[in-house]
């Protein structure tokens, strides 16, 4: 019943918005939104009956009536709290899903490079938006449908052939306003030309300690021989809900690295999907989550090896405390064409109490015959022999446990190439372990 009420709430909201956009309602862009809301009406929110949502119940999310909110005033100090010390970035601030020009700071870029808001570009370059919007992220569940139907703002990064954005682009997302249950639905596009390179940090933080729902969709297109690194930090308050779909399409010779670290959130669901759609692509997916209380973190990945001679390397790790829960579902799909595929997947978790739980489901579907694929999953406790060993050398119990937890996550950290980002995330992990 709750489910039906929720659905109606968002359908009604859509009608309200549609009634206020006047001329825009005739555009092809809005036509896509309308199709998305129809799709939403058809598929609805996922339930435990959906195989992909078997271990993650969203009923808690559906208890609240979330609605879009305006940008609110945020101080520079608040922004500074979330910056990565010492790291030079193009700062892009997004508040409740809306780009904030005043708080952003974007360096002058090479010709043709664009770091702009989705909203601006819908007006100034609708062709670019229409070429990519909804082309990568299929509407296969209610959340993607909802994001698409309500798509309004977000960030677009577009880099022409043979170019690079030197510094990281840090998309800093702040959510909340202290009064209502904010719904933030950024829609981000990253379009990278041939031989080009971009590094993006997307971080998520709460303005207020209230229930909010962030429902993001990232669509990524990598040109031939391009490089893209996407580093995601989820550090929202423990009352927030976070749903993230990242869909990347890789062309020949490209390399994509996705790094995800989840520290906050009540229910967090990440869907990270890549299609290796040209020869000699590399896809790296690295993830770490630390949970406490009743936090629930679900990482779903799909690596689609569509062409031969590609590599994928996937490693997810979790540290669970109290009564928290983790889910890992990693699907690797090797199509008939994708000979000489080299795919590696590993996922490990440490349970610090008897009350936490992890559901893990590695899935390999292989239709080619000359491939190298391996996967492994391990769930265990902290090694008490190791704890004693450290303590016997004078290291206090609490620190010993922290050192060992941090050591468990070490191979995830080692994939970071920026020392500043590495140190910052390291710091946040130690903080969370307090």
């Amino acid at each position: 019943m709750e489910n039906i009420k929720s659905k109606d709430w968002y359908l009604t909201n859509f009608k309200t918005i549609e009634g206020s956009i006047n001329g825009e309602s005739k555009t092809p862009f809005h036509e896509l939104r309308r199709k998305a809301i129809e799709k939403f009406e058809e598929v609805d929110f996922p339930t435990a009956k959906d195989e992909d949502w078997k271990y993650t119940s969203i009923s808690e999310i559906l208890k609240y009536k979330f609605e879009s909110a305006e940008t609110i005033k945020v101080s520079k100090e608040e922004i500074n709290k979330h910056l990565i010390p010492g790291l030079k970035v193009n700062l892009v601030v997004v508040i409740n899903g809306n780009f904030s020009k005043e708080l952003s700071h974007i360096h002058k870029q090479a010709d043709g490079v664009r770091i702009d808001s989705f909203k601006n570009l819908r007006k100034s370059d609708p062709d670019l938006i229409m070429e990519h919007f909804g082309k990568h992220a299929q509407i296969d569940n209610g959340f993607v449908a909802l994001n698409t139907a309500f798509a309004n703002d977000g960030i677009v990064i577009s880099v022409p052939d043979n170019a690079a954005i030197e510094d990281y682009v840090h998309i800093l997302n702040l959510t909340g306003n202290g009064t209502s249950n904010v719904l933030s639905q950024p829609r981000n596009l990253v379009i990278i030309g041939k031989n080009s390179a971009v590094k993006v940090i997307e971080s998520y933080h709460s303005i207020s300690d209230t229930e909010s729902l962030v429902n993001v969709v990232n669509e990524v297109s990598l040109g031939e021989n391009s490089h893209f690194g996407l580093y995601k930090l989820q550090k929202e308050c423990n009352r927030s809900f976070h749903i993230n779909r990242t869909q990347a399409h890789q062309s020949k010779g490209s390399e994509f690295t996705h790094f995800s670290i989840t520290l906050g959130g009540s229910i967090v669901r990440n869907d990270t999907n890549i299609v290796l759609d040209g020869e000699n692509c590399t896809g790296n997916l690295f993830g770490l989550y630390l949970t406490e209380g009743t936090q629930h973190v679900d990482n779903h990945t799909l690596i689609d090896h569509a062409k031969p001679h590609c590599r994928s390397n996937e490693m997810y790790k979790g540290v669970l405390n109290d009564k928290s829960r983790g889910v890992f579902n990693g699907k690797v799909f090797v199509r008939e064409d994708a000979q000489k595929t080299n795919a590696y997947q590993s996922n490990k978790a440490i349970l610090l109490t008897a009350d936490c739980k992890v559901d893990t489901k590695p899935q390999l579907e292989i239709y080619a015959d000359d491939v190298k694929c391996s996967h492994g999953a391990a769930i265990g406790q902290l090694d008490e022999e190791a704890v004693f060993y450290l303590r016997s050398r004078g290291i206090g119990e609490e620190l010993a446990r922290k050192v060992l937890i941090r050591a468990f996550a070490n191979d995830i950290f080692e994939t970071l190439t920026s020392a500043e980002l590495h140190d910052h995330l390291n710091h946040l992990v130690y903080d969370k372990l307090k």
Partner: protein
Amino acid sequence: MLTVKDLFVRVEDKEILNGINLQVNAGEVHAIMGPNGSGKSTLANVIAGKDGYEITSGEVTLDGKDLLDMSPEERAREGVFLAFQYPVEIPGVSNASFLKTALNEIRKHKGLEELDAMHFLKYMKEKMKLIGIDDKLINRPVNQGFSGGEKKRNEIFQLQMLQPKLAVLDETDSGLDIDALKIVSHGVNTFRNKDNAVVVVTHYQRLLNYIVPDFVHVLVNGRIVKSGGKSLALELEDKGYDWVTAAEPAEESV
């Protein structure tokens, strides 16, 4: 320095130590010998504070301080060091950063200033030379992928780095070839001085050719059944443990 009085220890329902008495003074080296299952490792672990042992009675003190009342880390900071029989592998933690953390925790406890990276490195280099440990081993995760000999050498390296009052070596000779045995013994012998003490727990007399003890105690069924000077070890080697185990019931009736 170390005083063990009437120590009785049980693991689950099994009595392992049945009234140990031991006095180790500064400047002394004591060897605890005994057959397998006699309780040697239990004694070492109880001194270091490992979980899983029930102390039913008795006391263990270090310079008059009650060790049994302290956590393992407090004992270490007070100067107890256990060289493990099976050193633990710790992936993801480099040997160097582990030792820096440990050393500074101990220094903090003693009210000394923590060593910064530069001073620590200088101090570590000296000790590395002494034990013949190279950079590769130092930068690797603690004991990970080390050979048996490298692990034991790493224990003695830690002993040299941390400079405890009391070193308890648990079967440090097991799995060592003669060259490694010499290096490890050299590390222990250079550690020895008039202010510290060493307790060597071993099954074989071989190690005692290199680390010469002042006293030898024979542990059988959780009791010290015989004590003597270094010649006792040779006698044991010659006659085997049956010699003392046979004598044990007679002692029990005394």
